[in-house]
């Protein structure tokens, strides 16, 4: 059962559910936070439209800086702007920022204790036809490992907008993971969002399996939970939009109430959500745990659905993983 208190999109399970790219929420959120706070500045590395920073650029041209195809400079110029009291948002594709410029993010932003928001668009294999070079499936691992970094992976464009606005007040480095493709709208403006808090979107009380998901795959997790219900298996779905700091309390509650968990992410199994959940549960409440994600491979060209199926992140894979986890109890 959908958790009504979360005020999710009532058309969530309709065949014609609204679909909007997650990155659009970043564009709307940056514009909103820019209107509220004159210290907010935007920097981009030659991808202003596809990262949706163009909305901010058009409204605040004097607060927008085009850095060109130079992601290392992008990160460190932002560090310098932060040193002067600005709140820089930087964007590129996740593969290049935080991919290409990881050391600059580590040293000139995190180590330097600067408040810079890094929005990495086109994350995951769902980038599709561009192929493996452009499919960031390591970005959560390389950001999660950095001290002072908050890592947020929104499940839809509405959550991305809320995360983008909230990031202006965090005071430390923030990575926001965005996706290119149109994604089913899961939440509404009224859905609770708080950095560092995971939310139960489906199921309540004692269940058979807990599906702990992040990003666009939260939608597939919810659909799998509906399918499991038909098969008399009770599933709970936890949306973990903040990967770091992970909401240990909620993750542990899910493990306690379900006795087995499946983590679901469009990312390498190493170092992302699954690892964060395993780190939490192995200390607090170990239960059987199955992992949905990319298994130590690079991506390739294809449609998003073809790629999600190929790399084992389709609904059938999640469903099988749930049964396997239950079987290991």
């Amino acid at each position, binding site marked *: 059962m959908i958790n009504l208190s979360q005020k999710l999109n009532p058309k969530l399970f309709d065949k014609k559910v609204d679909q909007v790219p997650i990155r659009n929420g970043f564009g709307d959120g940056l514009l909103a936070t820019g209107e509220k706070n004159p210290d907010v*500045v935007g920097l981009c590395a030659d991808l202003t439209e596809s990262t949706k920073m163009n909305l901010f650029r058009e409204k605040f041209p*004097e*607060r927008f*800086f085009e*850095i*060109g195809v*130079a992601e*290392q*400079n992008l*990160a*460190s*110029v*932002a*560090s*310098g*702007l*932060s*040193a*002067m*009291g*600005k709140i*820089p948002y930087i964007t590129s594709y996740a593969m290049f920022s935080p991919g290409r410029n990881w*050391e*600059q993010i580590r*040293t*000139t932003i995190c*180590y*330097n*204790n600067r408040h810079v928001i890094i929005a990495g668009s086109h994350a995951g294999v769902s980038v599709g036809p561009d192929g493996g070079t452009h499919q960031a499936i390591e970005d959560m691992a390389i950001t999660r490992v950095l001290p002072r970094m908050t890592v947020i992976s929104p499940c839809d464009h509405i959550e991305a907008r809320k995360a983008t606005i909230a990031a202006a007040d965090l005071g430390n480095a923030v990575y926001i993971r965005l996706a290119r493709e149109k994604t089913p709208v899961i939440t509404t403006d009224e859905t609770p969002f708080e950095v560092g808090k995971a939310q139960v979107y489906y199921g309540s009380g004692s269940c058979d399996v807990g599906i702990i998901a992040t990003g666009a795959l939260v939608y597939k997790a919810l659909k799998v939970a509906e399918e499991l219900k038909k098969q008399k298996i009770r599933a709970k779905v936890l949306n973990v939009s903040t990967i770091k700091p992970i909401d240990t309390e909620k993750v542990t509650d899910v493990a306690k109430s379900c006795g087995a968990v499946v983590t679901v992410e469009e990312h390498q199994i190493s170092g992302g959500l699954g690892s964060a959940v395993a780190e939490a549960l192995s200390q607090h409440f170990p239960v059987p745990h199955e992992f949905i994600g990319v298994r130590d491979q690079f991506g390739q060209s294809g449609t998003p659905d073809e790629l999600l199926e190929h790399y084992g992140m389709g609904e059938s894979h999640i469903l099988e993983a749930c049964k396997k986890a239950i079987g290991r109890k």
Partner: protein
Amino acid sequence: MQSLTDEKIKFLEEKAREIRISIIEMLVSAGSGHSAGPLGMADVFAALYFHILRHDPKVPTWPSRDRLVLSNGHICPVLYATMAHAGYFPVEELLTLRKFKSRLQGHPHRDFLPMLESSSGPLGSGLSQAVGMALGDRMDKGKANEKFIYCLMSDGELDEGQSWEAVVSAAKYRLGNLIAIIDRNNIQIDGYTEDVMPLEPLSHKFESFGWHVEEIDGHNFPAIIEAVGRAQAVFDGPSVIIARTIPGKGVSFMERDFHWHGIPPDKEQAKKALHELRTLGGQIRSEHQ
């Protein structure tokens, strides 16, 4: 900036000598660290902290201060020594360099010494940060004062691609409030810069990238100060001062030898170095003789 008198030049020379003595004392106490670069840049640092910079050592966070970004963090002994002699913190603290819990980390770290403008060490990213500071300062023009952002860099770090990303962006944004000073000492860890990865013609490179270029003797106080004055006057674009320095300057057996890039003197070598610095190479009698 005040005009430069003969008396002030003598004062600056004395400060540079004190800074070099502190550098040797710090390095021998630490037992590791870089010798050549810090000694070579002592004159530039003395000129900056005792003549050029608008700053207040008693109020390090004064908002209107000039900003100084040390991009090549490994020469931090000269930064720490100069800051101590300028009154930012006690000179005695210099001997804690590189020790556990010291504010004077092996490479500068703002967590430990918040009065630093930037943590640094990995090469090639300081100029980008200075570009960001210059952009941020310019956004505040009207509500703030005229300040300058100085970025101190090494020649070796120009091997880093990011340095050139910063160079083109500073020119694009016509950052007249940005002044880079390159320690052109021609050495890096593996040898002479022109053997490791040739940089010449360096001044032409910067000129063709749209920068105002000054090339000077980095041990000549009037030259340093006049070059900064001219750079300050260029308001429609960034300036670079290529300061030709002698690595290890002031200690005869270290001068011009790249082997001293990344190592400290041992106790005997330090004694000899300190004697040279205290006697100005035998020109005066040391108080310790």
